[in-house]
């Protein structure tokens, strides 16, 4: 099974650098595995840990957060906020039993298509090694008692 | 076009082999052929190919020409090339890689250079320490028998000043050292 496992990665990218790095990878025809699906944010500072949790809970096997290099943020220093959130998120996720490789923080400037592609390739391989995350679905509440539920007094007998 | 100019192996193979054999962040493929290595090299004038030219030959896949070159053996490990390289290529370390590759491939046309290294290594492997008198005599006997007489006064001067031993010193943990070196060589052979 693990041979055919293709991880699904959700990538959060910054409008000014990493999203453009992905564009750049395209313009330079830099190939990388098709496992990552990107979401554009205006800045990695927009990255709310809720997005990561939601992506993992909804079936992603990994999440990439990509921003401008430290010191190069288009909004001056908001990528440092992404860095801080990522570090705290990793600590929290560890307690949920989620491996650190599944949530990667990467820096890529608009000109770094090759680096961006390499980050994705590396991550896909790392997550592929870990196997599917396969987070169990949230339970769906039932309005009424299922008909076949035994009466409590009968269970005890 | 001469036969030597025809690349035998794929050009990339040799380059990546050299890069893989050199530790650290090796940027050999980034060489811009500026020549600051050759210019900085104390023995650059004596080299058949300067490091710069070697790197171009490596990129061109000229394995035999590169490994036969005397250049790596003339490297004195002064590290000028390394610290001055505008591309941060670890040139001195590349020279070590090329020497080891040349010995393994048996590709050198002047046996004197690797001979010196191998003689040195032999003494270290036998005694755990270097032995200058033995090294100088054995090396010169084997490779420069004519110059041995010329160097004699120097050796005598050393002996007279008490700066040279007549017998080698053997370390106590020779068995331990041999075990370590044997293991290392076995591992090294296993390394791709």
């Amino acid at each position, binding site marked *: 099974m693990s041979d055919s496992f293709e991880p699904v990665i959700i990538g959060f990218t910054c409008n000014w650098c990493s999203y453009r790095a992905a564009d750049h990878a395209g313009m330079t025809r830099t190939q990388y595995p098709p496992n990552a699906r990107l979401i554009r944010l205006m800045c990695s500072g927009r990255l709310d840990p809720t997005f990561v949790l939601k992506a993992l809970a909804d079936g992603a096997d990994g999440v990439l957060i990509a921003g401008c290099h430290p010191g190069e943020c288009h909004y001056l220093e908001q990528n440092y906020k992404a860095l801080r959130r990522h570090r705290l998120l990793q600590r929290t996720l560890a307690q949920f039993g989620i491996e650190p490789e599944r949530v990667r923080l990467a820096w890529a400037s608009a000109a770094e298509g090759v680096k961006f592609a390499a980050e994705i390739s590396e991550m896909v391989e790392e997550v592929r090694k870990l196997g599917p995350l396969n987070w169990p679905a949230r339970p769906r509440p039932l309005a009424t008692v299922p008909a076949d539920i035994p009466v409590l007094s009968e269970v005890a007998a | 076009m001469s036969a030597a100019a025809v690349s035998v192996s794929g050009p990339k193979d040799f380059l990546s082999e050299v890069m893989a054999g050199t*530790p650290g962040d090796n940027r050999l493929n980034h060489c811009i052929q500026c020549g600051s290595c050759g210019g900085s090299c104390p023995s650059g004038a004596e080299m058949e190919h300067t490091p710069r030219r070697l790197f171009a030959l490596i990129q061109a896949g000229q394995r035999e020409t590169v490994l036969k070159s005397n250049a790596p053996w003339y490297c004195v490990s*002064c590290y000028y090339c390394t610290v001055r390289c505008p591309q941060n290529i670890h040139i001195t370390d590349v020279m070590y890689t090329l020497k080891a590759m040349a010995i393994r491939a048996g590709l050198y046309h002047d046996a004197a250079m690797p001979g*010196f290294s191998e003689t040195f290594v032999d003494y270290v492997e036998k005694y755990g320490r270097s032995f*200058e008198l033995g090294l100088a005599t054995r090396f010169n006997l084997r490779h420069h028998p004519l110059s041995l007489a010329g160097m004699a006064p120097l050796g005598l001067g050393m002996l007279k000043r008490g700066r040279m031993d007549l017998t080698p010193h053997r370390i106590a943990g020779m068995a331990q050292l041999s075990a370590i070196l044997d293991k290392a060589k076995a591992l090294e052979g296993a390394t791709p």
Partner: protein
Amino acid sequence: MKALFYPGCSMQKNARPYLDSLLAIRADIDLELQEIDDWNCCGATEYMSVHRVAAHSLIGRNLALAQQQASDSDVLTAGCSACYLNLAKTDAQMREDAHLNATVNEALAAGGLAYQPGSLKVRHLLDVVCHDIGYAAIKARVVKPLHGLKVAAYYGCQVARPDYDGRWDCHEHPTAMDQLLRALGAEPVEWSLKTQCCGGHMSVIGPEVAFGLIRRLIHGATQAGADLVATLCPMCQLNLDAYQVEMNKHFHSDYQMPVLYFTQLMGLAFGKNAGELGIGKEFVDAAPALAKIQAEAPKVAEAKRKRRPKPSDGLPPPRME
């Protein structure tokens, strides 16, 4: 201060004066040296040329022994440049390269040893003397200042480069030994070749290359007005001193530039006698140069008095600020 000490093969014999002078002055500078028991050769530059991993393992044994024997210092010092660089390089590359670290430790395990890279601070003796003992402490110990002695501080290659741990101010023009010489009362000369190559092993395997390099260094020191060259490495001393004689033969020249270890000069300034410091074992006799040492400090202050510049002096002088 205390430090683990790796003397290396050269210091045992050809550089015996280096070791003798170091032992003679260590009490004065309060340097307690613990020699690594049963150390082996560092492999110089030769071993690395034949087997890279084995070379690192050869050095690794010394590091492992040092780590094992370390009691209250993590500083491992060596006086020979090649020994120092090999120890520092292996430590640095093991730190950098996890694969190398694993391989070397696997080899060491065959001898029942292990080394944790980064657990020791590998330092050259000059580094320890200048940066840990310090110029002030050294100056305080001087009883016979080397007034009037002009010295070319010669560092050679491998102490300053590639400098894995950033121990020196410059790869090309370090100043530590110059400051040390000043603390001893000597006058360091300004010259361009502080870290040029002495020829290394070329003196054996390609003497004509070495002779050219030795001549340039000896000429450079002479041109700069030095009475002698101070060195910190057995190989440099051997090439510049013993091979100076051969070089003179080769070029039909007559340079007479003595080459001493910085520890020998420290010994002289501390009032030790020449014999105890191994002075006299050099090929080019240092006695005439040492005879220039004056009792009084030369008067240089007068000439250096600040004065406002005049355009007629030419262009303003170059500055290193």
